[in-house]
């Protein structure tokens, strides 16, 4: 049955104010079914307050073969991390 159903990626927002995070994928014949399936598969233990679904084929991914040129140049540039000043305690989720 699943042979005919496209793959969807599921993003869940765990609570208001936080961002949607990728949590997995599932099969569904259209967006509406994908939302219902996501609700049943990924939010049954109170994981979320909002769901996004996007068809996997619509996501453009970077090629692992290019990891060297894409990501390695960042490795020796610690000064790009915002860790050289002190955050007040009141600031959450940084």
């Amino acid at each position, binding site marked *: *049955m699943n042979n005919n159903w496209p793959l969807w990626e599921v993003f869940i927002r765990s609570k208001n104010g936080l961002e949607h995070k990728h949590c997995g994928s599932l*099969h*569904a014949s259209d967006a509406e079914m994908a939302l*219902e*399936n996501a*609700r049943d598969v990924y939010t*049954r233990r109170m994981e979320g307050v909002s769901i996004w679904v996007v068809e996997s084929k619509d996501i453009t991914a970077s090629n692992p073969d290019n990891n060297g040129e894409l990501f390695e140049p960042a490795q020796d540039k610690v000064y790009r991390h915002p860790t050289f000043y002190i955050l007040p305690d009141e600031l959450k989720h940084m």
Partner: protein
Amino acid sequence: MKNENLYNYILGVADNSLILGQRLGELCGHGPSLETDIACTNVSLDLFGQVRSYFQYAAEIAGEGKTEDDIAFLRREREYKNVLLVEQPNTDFGYTIVRQFLFDVYHLLFLEEMQKSQDKTLVAIAKKSIKEVSYHARFSTDWVKRLGDGSEESQQRIQKAVNSLWTYTDELFHQTEADKAMVEVGVAVDVTTLKDAYYTKVNSVLEIATIDIPESKWFQKGGKNGVHTEHLGYLLADMQYMQRSYPGMEW
């Protein structure tokens, strides 16, 4: 028992959820796809949750140290008061979905009315359950439309399931003696008043699903008075096995 009518009334309401929950639970690990498998099991667990609230209340009314487990597991077949519709087997996904749809539409109308009961416990259960059941109805309605208005084969299967299960729909609106007594005192939902809204809703969905509405005016009945189809005995044998083999066992 002091309030036998109330006790029997609660069992009549709760047994529908218990037996349907057990039927859906049989699909755990056997659903047609991972997604629908989990969806059916979720519905099953919602129904069992509702059943626990009802049976805890019934056990309190019964007194004499009765527990929710006694009521769920230690009755004989003729003492179960569920409608015949919910005990019908999971013949295929078409049957499972049509059975669910035919019950969900009723269940939602029923809980809407139960929120107006004079009995505070029943009102509280209705308010909690109605959100769950709204989703059940959405899920089964969507699937009836998808499969009915789907491929030639899915349409035929839904039509076949509707033709087979239609005969069990009228019983939803029958009243037992306990029902009538509880309607009198404003506790029970008068199910006879739900019938028109029920068939209007069901027919409108079947029309969208390109499914013919069966014309037969002959309907099965008996479940509410304990006279069941041959399927219930097997279901109970499965469901009661642990408590019968190891009396009083706890999880």
